[in-house]
Each structure stands twice: as structure tokens, then as C-alpha cells.
């Protein structure tokens, strides 16, 4: 009896400390995000550094997200065609692929892949700078490391994500066409016309624009984890892993809210 009571209180305590640690992390992340908003408009502006990160992060992510987008488009068309065919609705395949890809799949696939690739990279890079005192070195030189390291990376991610998403959407639609053309004789012109006619402003703009918010999440979570790293190389590993997990979860959670808002506004 005593043992089970003891076990029960241990479980409660474990759950409580887990919740406390989660909310502590979210609180710290919120303060970090507010600091970004407070700092981003103030000089000095490190445009060169933003451009450098854009080049680096873009070239690092494009091959992976591009290939994934193409293959997902191909698979989506391949999987959906038999079902639509059964109901005699296979003519709607281009429209269905276009809407699902542009509204949801393209943005979320891009964001999740970039989160895995970039957020962990930022976490590891800033984490190792923290444990080797490079961030302190910047601070004692009278240079704001938050401005130089965090603001530039977050801005680069916010610019990069919409651009990558546009490319992934295009490649996904191309992948879907390849699948369709293998199984039927639909011409590119007919396919493209169906795609264009099916897409509206409410599909395109929110789909691309929300990825800037995903870019913010990726940049800020990676930077936060890296900036707050403690505990040497083990801490760097943890920062990198936590950055991926937390940014992926936040992307999905925020996407759910944004979809609801988009549907509420545009229907």
C-alpha cells in the first residue's frame, strides 16, 4: 500500500517536473522571441550576414526539399488516381493535387525538412559557440551577439522558407504531372490549365505566407537552444536535438491554428 502510494507520488512528481520544464522552456522561448522583435528594427543592420546565411542555408536545403517535393507530388498523384478513377473523377486529379500541395503539403513538408536540417544546425553551431566562449568573446568586444548571431539567422530563415516553398510547390506539381503522364495521355497544357483554374488567391498567398512564420519558428527555436546551451559537448548535442523536436512540434501546432484562421477568413 505504502509502496504504491510512494510510486504514485513519484509519477505525479515526474509529470509535474516535466510540465514545469516544458512551460519554463516555452516561457524562455517567448522572452527570446520578444527580444528578437525588440532588436530587429534597431541599427546596426547586418545585411551582409543575412545574405551569407541565405546563401548557406538555401544551398544546404534546396537539394533535399526539392527532391522530396518532387517525389511527394509523384506519390500523391500515384496514390490518389485509382480512388478518383473508381468514382469517375480522375479528371479532377490535377486540381486535387494542386490544392493539397499548394495549401498544405508544400509548406509543411518544406518547413519540417528545413527544421530538421537548419534548426538543428543553428542549435549546434550557436551551442558550440556558447560552450567555447565565442559568444562571450563577441559580447566583451562590445558587439551584441544576439543582433549578430540570432537576428540575422532568424531573418534569413523567414526570407528563405517562402522561396523554398514556392520551389517545392512547383517541383511537387511537376512530380504529379510525371505520374499522370505515365498512366494517361494528358498533355502538359491541359494539366497546367487545370492546375491554374483550380487555384485561387486563398490557396496561394496564405500557403506561401505562412511559411515566413514557420521560418521564424525554425530560426528562433534553433537560436534559442544554441544560445542557452550549457554542459559542454553533451549540451550541444541536446540543443541540436531539442531544436528539431521543438520546432517541428511548433510548426505543426501553429499550422493547425493558421489553417483554421485561413478557412475562417477565406472559407
Amino acid at each position, binding site marked *: 500500500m505504502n509502496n504504491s502510494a510512494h510510486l504514485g507520488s513519484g509519477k505525479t512528481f515526474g509529470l509535474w517536473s516535466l510540465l514545469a520544464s516544458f512551460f519554463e522552456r516555452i516561457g524562455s522561448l517567448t522572452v527570446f522571441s520578444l527580444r528578437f522583435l525588440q532588436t530587429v528594427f534597431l541599427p*546596426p543592420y547586418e545585411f551582409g550576414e543575412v545574405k551569407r546565411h541565405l546563401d548557406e542555408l538555401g544551398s544546404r536545403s534546396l537539394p533535399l526539399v526539392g527532391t522530396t517535393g518532387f517525389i511527394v507530388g509523384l506519390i500523391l498523384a500515384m496514390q490518389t488516381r485509382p480512388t478518383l478513377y473508381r468514382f469517375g473523377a480522375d479528371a479532377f486529379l490535377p486540381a486535387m493535387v494542386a490544392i493539397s500541395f499548394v495549401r498544405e503539403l508544400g509548406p509543411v513538408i518544406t518547413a519540417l525538412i528545413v527544421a530538421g536540417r537548419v534548426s538543428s544546425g543553428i542549435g549546434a553551431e550557436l551551442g*558550440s559557440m556558447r560552450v567555447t566562449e565565442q559568444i562571450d*568573446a*563577441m559580447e*566583451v568586444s*562590445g558587439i551584441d551577439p544576439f543582433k549578430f548571431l540570432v537576428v540575422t539567422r532568424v531573418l534569413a530563415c523567414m526570407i528563405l522558407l517562402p522561396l523554398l516553398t514556392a520551389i517545392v510547390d512547383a517541383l511537387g506539381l511537376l512530380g504529379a504531372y510525371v505520374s499522370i503522364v505515365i498512366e494517361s495521355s494528358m498533355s502538359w497544357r491541359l494539366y497546367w490549365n487545370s492546375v491554374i483554374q483550380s487555384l485561387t488567391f486563398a490557396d496561394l498567398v496564405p500557403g506561401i505566407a505562412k511559411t515566413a512564420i514557420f521560418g521564424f519558428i525554425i530560426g528562433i527555436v534553433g537560436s534559442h537552444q544554441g544560445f542557452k546551451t550549457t554542459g559542454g559537448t553533451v549540451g550541444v548535442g541536446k540543443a541540436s536535438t531539442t531544436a528539431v523536436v521543438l520546432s517541428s512540434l511548433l510548426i505543426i501546432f501553429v499550422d493547425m491554428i493558421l489553417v483554421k484562421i485561413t478557412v475562417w477568413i477565406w472559407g
Partner: protein
Amino acid sequence: MGLIEIRDLSKSFNGHAVLKDVNLVVEKGSTVVILGKSGVGKSVLLKTIIGLMPPDTGSIRIDGQEVVGMDRRTLDALRKQMGYLFQGAALYDSMTVRENLAFPLERQARLTVDELEERILRQLGMVGLEDAIDKMPAELSGGMKKRIGLARALINNPRIMFYDEPTTGLDPITAREISYLIKELQQLYQPTSIAVTHDMMCARIIADKAAVLHDGVIEYEGTISGMESVSNEVVKSFLATA
């Protein structure tokens, strides 16, 4: 009145007191070496003085200005008059040696490209590493990293210098070379300096004055030669290692 004045400074981590009412005065142009075993809080003291860690209580005045609670902008302006050599040199590992030296310089002074290059080359010449200008930090040995770190710390002719374990991790010969290099650069730039170390050889070379930190308290303050005549066991144990 000293250029740096520390009064009743205390700092603790998770209830463990690392610094207990530390008092220290550093006169303008002098070099004070803080001696102490590893883990007694020497680096914490240095980081607290420069504002990287807030103290629990106490006061730190640099050139008459209170550092504790100072706003970010004023602190940054004050830090631009300071140099800091980190224990591991803390070179930016994504930048070449040239970029490492240019980084603080181009953000603090308006210089042309030629002036910038000239200052970098002059600084590297002082530490004898002109050839390393295009190398990445990963390509440098421990001693070379310290030299580059020293060149970077001194590139803005700081009025105040901080050295965190300048000889740690180096072989005795390189440690001696670095100590003499610090001494030489101290004489050239004449900054007010605080160095923390557990290396008596380094302390003998660079110090005008020594302070021995033990259990969060300064046990001895005076000249290095004066340490010989003190009966304090902690001080004696340091002399025994020299």
C-alpha cells in the same frame, strides 16, 4: 583611487558561494594576478567584473562608473575600451585569422580597407604570426591560438585587459613564451590588467601585484616576492608549485 575597484562582491551558484565579499583595487597601469586553484571562482570573478555574470551583491567600479546594473549601451561602450583573452582563446571558428582580427576592429573604428589590413598585419607581427593570416582557427596549435587571441584582444589598444588562464593547456616552453609576450605587450600598450591563473611561473613574469583567492575569499594581497614571507598555508602551497 584605483581604476578598477571591487567592493564586497559575492556570487553563488545553486546555494554554493563562489565569491564571498571580495574586495580588490587595481591601480591604473598595473597588472594584478589573481592566483587560485582550479574551481575557486577566478574566472567567475573576471566574468563578473566585465559584466558577463551579474553578482549577487557588491559593487564594481571601473574608471568611476558602476558596472553592476549598468545599461547595455553604456556597458558596450565601456567594453570597447577593454580586451579579454579567453582561456581557450575563443577564436570565431567560422572565420579566418584575418576576419577574427577585423571583426571587432571594423565595428568599432571607421577604417579604410588598407588601414584595416595594415592594423591586422601589425598586430600579427607583434605576436609573430603574419603567416597565419589566412588560416582557420582549426588549423592552429594551442599556442598559436593564444597568440592570435592576444592579438585580437589588443587590436583596439584597450585601456583595460583581462587574461583568463593565459597559459592553461600549453607546454611549459610555450607557456613561458606566452607569459613573456604578455609582459612585452603590457609594456608596449600599458593597459591596466587583471590576469587569473594557477601558474606561478606566469604570475612571476607578468604580475606587479598578486591576490590569492581561496574558498571565495582573497587570502593574500601584495607583491609576488612578499608571498615568500607569508605564513598562510594556501599561499605557501602556491609557492611550493613554482
